[in-house]
């Protein structure tokens, strides 16, 4: 007798819930456009927000509805845009993928520490503590918020205390730029030509040279010498406009602390370490 009740009970419950789910699936069916799913498959799925939408799903819907451009996904780069274009039958506008550039060459051998900081290993927190332990209060503190933010493992913290960008891996999504509390990292269109002032300090003269051997002391020498007026002083910091820059290199020669470098000759970690070794050999 019991077995009949048991079978009846479970059978009915199973049937009921099966029906319930089936009906609910039909009644509440959200008419998702199959193309959205297909586009979503193509996207890297990092939800980095570089496309300006809340995650890949959101961007996929925007692309299918025509609101967003096919090449909107920056990390995806060209092949993703081509794939999406193929799906939606649109031609591809070439997407110029930016690259992260570190505007600070004041590594731990060229600057010194005001005090020993042993607190929370976070750039923002370290920066808020008495203006940061580095003599330069605009320079990189080396706790790697940018490294933590990068989803593509394209940025590493060098031995010399500055982040090093791997241009192949960098997808230009800009997460590291947002993560840096001192906005030292900026996104520039890819390219090797043109000169950059690799400094972020808004101080003047003595206070900069005391803080860092290679900081921009706002002497305006580069502004005067530049034939194209491509350089402008923004709050005691020289900024070169890459469109106007004709790659002549006069500013780099004139710059007393040598802060200006050509884009393909930015000082590397190895050079910094060599400089440090030589400096310690001198003083020993």
């Amino acid at each position, binding site marked *: 007798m*019991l*077995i009949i009740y*048991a*079978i009846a*009970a*479970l*059978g*009915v*419950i*199973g*049937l*009921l*819930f*099966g*029906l319930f*789910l*089936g*009906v609910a*699936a*039909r009644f509440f069916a959200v008419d998702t456009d199959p193309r959205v799913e297909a586009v979503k498959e193509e996207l890297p799925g990092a939800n980095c927000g570089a496309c300006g939408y809340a995650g890949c799903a959101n961007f996929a819907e925007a692309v299918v509805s025509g609101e967003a451009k096919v090449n909107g996904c920056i990390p995806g780069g060209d092949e993703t845009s081509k794939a999406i274009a193929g799906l939606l039958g649109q031609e591809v506008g070439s997407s110029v993928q930016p690259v992260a550039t570190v505007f600070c060459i004041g590594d731990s051998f060229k600057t010194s520490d005001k005090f020993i900081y042993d607190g929370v290993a976070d750039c923002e927190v370290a920066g808020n503590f008495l203006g940061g332990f580095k003599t330069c209060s605009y320079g990189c503190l080396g706790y790697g918020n940018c490294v933590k933010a990068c989803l593509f493992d394209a940025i590493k913290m060098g031995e010399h205390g500055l982040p090093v960008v791997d241009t192949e891996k960098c997808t230009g999504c800009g997460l590291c730029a947002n993560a840096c509390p001192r906005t030292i990292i900026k996104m520039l269109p890819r390219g090797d030509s043109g000169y950059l002032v690799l400094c972020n300090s808004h101080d003047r003269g003595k206070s900069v040279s005391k803080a860092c051997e290679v900081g921009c002391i706002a002497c305006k020498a580069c502004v005067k010498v530049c034939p194209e007026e491509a350089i402008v002083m923004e709050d005691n910091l020289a900024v070169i406009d890459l469109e106007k820059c004709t790659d002549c290199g006069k500013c780099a020669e004139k710059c007393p602390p040598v802060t200006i470098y050509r884009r393909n000759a930015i000082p590397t970690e190895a050079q910094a370490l060599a400089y440090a070794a030589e400096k310690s050999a001198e003083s020993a």
Partner: protein
Amino acid sequence: MRNIIKLSVTLAVVGIISAALLTGVYNVTAPIIAERQEAEYRQALELYFPGFASYDSEEIGDDYFDLIYDGSDELIGIMGTIEQQGYDGTITYNLAMDDSGSIIGVRVVSHSETPGIGDVITTEVFQEQFFGKNYEDPIVAGDDVNAITGATVSSSAMINSIRRVSGVVAENFLGVESVAIDISEVPDGTYQGSAPGLGGELTVEVEVSDGVIVSIEVIEHNETPTYFIEAYPFIPEQIIAEQHFDIDTQTGATISSEAIIEAVQNALREALGIEVGEEPEEEPVDINISEIPDGIYVGSGEGFYGPITVEVEVAGGQIVSIVITGQDETPEYFRESNPLIPERIIEEQSLDIDTSTGATFSAKGIVQAVLNALDSESGGED
């Protein structure tokens, strides 16, 4: 549409197969489980009512009672299965009482008291205290039944529950109308009564005028405040409103509430001249040490878990040293009474000392051992 049918049918088929399988297994195991539980229960009954014939069960409130009959259908006893709220959850225990209403057995069926502390309620020593107690004896924690310190909540929960249940058994099965207090007969005036609460003695002052309790005031107690606010003034108001005593004590502070009721009843019992279970006076257990010849004496006394043996050295009519040569008490309890008790005895040079240390049992065990050693007849010269 077809798809939905297919889905729900699959689910239903899987459900049906599982139901059939489970029922099959259930039919096999259910009798075994029932039979095992029955055997276990019969074994317990056998323990207290050897040679019983049959029993039938009754239910009062949420307690279960089995009336146990011998061969000639004579009621030989009652076995209660009671669930009581302990420190850490429900304690289920069996209470066996013979037909004259005195307790002959206590058995903890299941509990989740903290291991090592609360589970002292499962030790024979704790349970044996209740044996022989009759339903009239006011089983009072601390006086004639020791609430194990360190496990006060668990043990006093058990003690109060056993007292309540024995009252219920007495009233319902043994045909004893409870020693009811008829408030209307109480002459006007204010009376004092006291009863043991969670933290110790609780004393109330009850004012009665023309047969009605007018006011109840707790004049002295040391209950835990968080418990006490749950019981006071709620319980007195209830008593005054209903003018009788079986009111709901499930106030989240059962022990304090029952203590207040007990105290009010004691106050009125005194007023009505019903003798209240007075303190069983311990006869003074002192011997004149100065007469004892010098020498080392050996003796033993009954501790919590077993015998405690001591070696007492007497010189110049004075106890010079007491060494405990053997015991297997629980370490954390024994530490509270050793070396405290020996020092006290030597200091006061008498055995009539305060034994309410953190471990009353061990303390009394040591005193007994020393007495046994020095008592000329039983003790032997080493």
